């Protein structure tokens, strides 16, 4: 994600338990089938709470905890949103690993009462125009902006795709919650 390249490893990763020799020992034991957990070397993969230490938001439209619910089992085939890392990627220069189709996982049957769009949300879903979702909707809802009520006012698709690749933010610069510069 943007700005993370300037952070050191410990800013996001907790140290793995044990000293170096214990960690190597545990990994070799795991390879040999002598233990059945997944020991790590150096640092642990970031947990959701590690991300939330800087990116906690009071009014997230898609809070991560919800995707751990059994009802989202089939959605996991499209995107494993149980962890921040299921969508957000790091160390690659991209912001989000998305093929633009993630919304399909949960919103296939979307219907909006008093739908303001020229082509209804239900129609967009039935035509599988999943690219259009992010052209209007901010996934986490952290940008201070009104959601357009007309398809004519949607963002340019290339601008959205560029944003997912770590480009400029087309949703605007005003945010409800600003990321902390360091863990508290």
């Amino acid at each position, binding site marked *: 994600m943007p700005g993370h390249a300037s952070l050191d490893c410990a800013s996001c990763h907790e140290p793995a338990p044990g000293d170096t020799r214990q960690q190597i020992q545990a990994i*070799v*034991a795991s390879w040999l089938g002598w233990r059945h957990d997944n020991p790590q070397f150096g640092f642990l993969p970031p947990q959701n*709470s590690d991300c939330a230490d800087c990116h906690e938001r009071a009014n997230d439209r898609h809070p991560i*905890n919800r995707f751990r*619910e*059994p*009802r989202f089992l089939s959605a996991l085939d499209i995107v494993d949103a149980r962890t921040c890392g299921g969508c957000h990627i790091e160390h690659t220069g991209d912001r989000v690993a998305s093929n633009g189709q993630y919304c399909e996982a949960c919103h296939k*049957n979307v219907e909006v*009462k008093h739908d303001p769009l020229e082509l209804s949300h239900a129609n967009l879903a039935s035509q599988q125009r999943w690219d259009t979702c992010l052209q209007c909707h901010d996934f986490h809802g952290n940008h201070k902006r009104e959601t357009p009520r007309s398809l004519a006012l949607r963002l340019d698709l290339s601008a959205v795709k560029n944003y997912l690749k770590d480009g400029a933010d087309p949703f605007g610069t005003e945010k409800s919650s600003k990321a902390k510069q360091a863990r508290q």
Partner: protein
Amino acid sequence: MNTIPTISAIAAVACVYLFATAPAPLPEAPERSGSRNAVIPVSKLFDTVNLVNAKTRQIWTSRIVGKGIEAGLKFEEHWLDDGEEAGPLPALFVRLTAENLEKQKSSLALFLGSDKPINKANLFQGEQVAQFAAINEDNKPRYFSMERMGVEVGMYPDFASAPACVSCHNQHEKSAKQDWKLNDVMGATTWTFPSKKVSDSEIHKNIGHLYTAIQKSYQTYLDRVRKFSANVKIGKEWPEKANLALPDADTFMDAILEATAPAVDKKVYLDAASIENRDRR
């Protein structure tokens, strides 16, 4: 140079380095079967946390939302939107608690759902549909495994326990059912945990996480109330007609503890949460 003796020598040195002279091996992380001391069925953990959550919800619904409305407070679906001077409706207070549970790195997770929800995102799917149908038959909880998600699941019926539950859901324009009656099963509270068995200390730790999540959720509400244009007294008093007051976090949590004490040792909360709460103050 003879390769085989060289490789053998390196392997021997590596073995000595890793296993003969190395410090004690790292303890193995618990698998889905639970830690070595895990002998208690996870359903016991689910039963206890569900009781704590149900009592909290009852207090929130009747003493904060019900009496708060009489006092002049507002409770809204979009209570977190900019400019809103409102608090969370009962289901949204549970959702906030679920989010705060996640933020504590708890393995325990909490969800609300229904077969006739106001918000379609809360519609049961897959295994939960059949389990909820069974709950609707006898009003008893269901425990089952979701192997692919790697979790054990407990589902508990949510009853329409207060007139406000019925009237609000019946009047909501997006409600999928508008003829709810008192004591109907409106949905279910779902709990998940990654192992079938838990240890005594895991039970204590996770109940502590839930108490802390409830406290943090209430604190979030109070933090917003302090910015309301109306002057809401925050202290020892509870809201009632002609008394625009709210209990402070300690008073609120004392009421939760009082209501749950028959089933949950207060020590769990005091051990797990009080230090953090004190630091916060």
